[in-house]
């Protein structure tokens, strides 16, 4: 609660557009990462296709607003359209891919992600391919400060929603599946159905993040569907700590800040251009030695005291 107040105060402290943009980005990607955590941290599924939901949300928003005009009603249309698509896509893909083991699931989701990516690239008439297109946002969202608060509220809502989901009976079953899938099955739970629910929830939230992203960037290109985005989510969630929603937020904060700040340091030393390497190594170390990520390790230090 305190944290939210602090974050809410940020626009009052600085009027720097860059800072506001940075924080907005952190929130949006944080939501994306949290949706990924539902899959990875709470259900124990490794998906490589998450970016396709994010991208679908972004493209829907961009395409609808570009073609019908930047008004609130069109935005709502885009949101509804995205939600519908997200549910349908996650059900179809989920149904096809969840029936196989983890490893094959990872491969299939990667394949689907590639398919979506290539479709976005080739369907130039609608998506303008790899060049992407920009568009206007509804006037009430053009003020950066208003947008910032809007996204902050969005973030808080999503956190509350996901928290409720995780603590609900469905969420508990998902965690049981993560811990020991066979046992959950023996206990009589229809594992496939629950995994499907998890996929739909995660997919929908990710697509909402995609919408927000499109609104923030005012530009959509194939980058939003790229496997890189999914890997970003993976990094953020793991480094911050899987299985804890806040870990994803911390991960997002760290990664996004690093992206923006370290790129500036590149002037001093070219090694900073490849800061991704450091993140990759950090990620490997965390998976090997600190499975709880930042939050997990923090918790462990606390309980030891």
């Amino acid at each position, binding site marked *: 609660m305190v944290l939210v107040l602090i974050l809410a105060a940020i626009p009052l402290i600085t009027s720097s557009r860059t800072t506001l943009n940075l924080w907005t980005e952190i929130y949006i990607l944080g939501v994306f990462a949290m949706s990924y955590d539902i899959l990875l941290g709470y259900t124990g599924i*490794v998906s490589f296709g998450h970016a396709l939901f994010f991208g679908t949300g972004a493209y829907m928003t961009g395409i609808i607003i570009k073609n019908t005009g930047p008004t609130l009603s069109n935005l709502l249309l885009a949101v509804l359209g995205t939600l519908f698509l997200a549910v349908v896509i996650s059900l179809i893909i989920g149904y096809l891919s969840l029936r196989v083991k983890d*490893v094959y699931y990872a*491969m299939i989701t990667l394949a689907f992600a590639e398919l979506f990516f*290539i479709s976005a690239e080739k369907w130039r008439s609608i998506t303008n391919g790899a060049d992407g297109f920009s568009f206007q946002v509804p006037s009430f969202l053009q003020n950066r400060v208003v947008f910032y608060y809007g996204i902050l509220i969005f973030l808080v809502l999503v956190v509350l929603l996901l928290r409720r989901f995780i603590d609900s009976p469905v969420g508990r079953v998902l965690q049981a599946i993560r811990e020991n899938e066979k046992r959950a099955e023996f206990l009589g739970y229809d594992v496939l159905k629950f995994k499907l629910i998890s996929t739909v929830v995660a997919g929908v939230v990710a697509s909402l993040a995609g919408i927000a992203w499109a609104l923030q960037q005012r530009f959509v290109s194939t980058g939003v569907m790229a496997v890189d985005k999914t890997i970003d989510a993976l990094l953020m969630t793991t480094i911050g700590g899987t299985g804890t929603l806040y870990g994803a937020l911390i991960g997002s904060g760290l990664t996004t800040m690093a992206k923006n700040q370290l790129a500036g340091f590149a002037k001093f030393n070219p090694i900073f*251009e490849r800061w991704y390497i450091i993140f*990759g*190594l950090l990620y*490997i170390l965390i998976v090997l030695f600190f499975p709880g990520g930042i939050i997990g390790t923090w918790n462990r230090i606390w309980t030891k005291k």
Partner: protein
Amino acid sequence: MDIFMNLTLSGLSTGMMIFLLASGLSLIFGLMGVLNFAHGSIFMWGAYSGVWIYFRTQSFTLAILTGMMMGMALGWLAERTIIRRVYGRPIDQILITTGLMLVLNEVLKAVFGPNIIAVPIPPLLAGSWELGRIIIVKYRVFTIFVGLVVAAAVHLILTRTRVGMIVRAGVQNQEMVQVLGINIRQVFSLVFMFGAGLAALGGVMMAPAIGAINPGMGLENQMLAFIVVVIGGMGSILGSALASVLVGLAGVYTAWFLPEAALAVNVLFMTVVLLIKPSGLFGMGGEQNR
């Protein structure tokens, strides 16, 4: 007619190079249950290091050797430091090899630069023969030849040597092999190294075939290799070979008629196989440590 010859040759050639990448993946997956997401990166490193040496020495043979050694070195290093800590934990394996892929890709970009590098075909293998209206590209025949030789060699090693026998047995039932007193960990290291070397070889071969190398080729081809492993079945060289040819041909033919659908067709194959016979057409992997 000549178009079909051309397409078939091209498809077979692509298939063979994918086979080099996929056979290692298949063995590693079948024997150790590890799905190496970094396999494509090793493939890429093989290509880049081979090309680098080729530019400096103009010797394709040296390039091939360097590429293979680079692959084996990376494979050995990866196995020793990272892979062996996550045996038996499939989720962690996926996560870790993904991280490895990330690091390898980024280091590659740091060392060699992020741009596309053009690669010429070695003069000896360049050009084509003409049989009437059919043009046969020499380099493609070369790749098919190498692919067949490797396939034969691997098959012989697997069926005629003691190590090969242990590997086959390990693919079918890992625990049993250990119970019989054989140090399966050493065999793991060997297979991983060997698989990595094969992948790197595939990379060096593919570089002149496409004419250019870029930092994205790791992931692109790895995707195809995954598809091959799923269709052909893990742990089966025969399966990998047939599936590679299938994938190669399907990709090339689809690209000719309907370019956008090339990857989709292969993904479709993979989905169908996964739904009907998840162990692949020739799969013989055991189920112990999944």
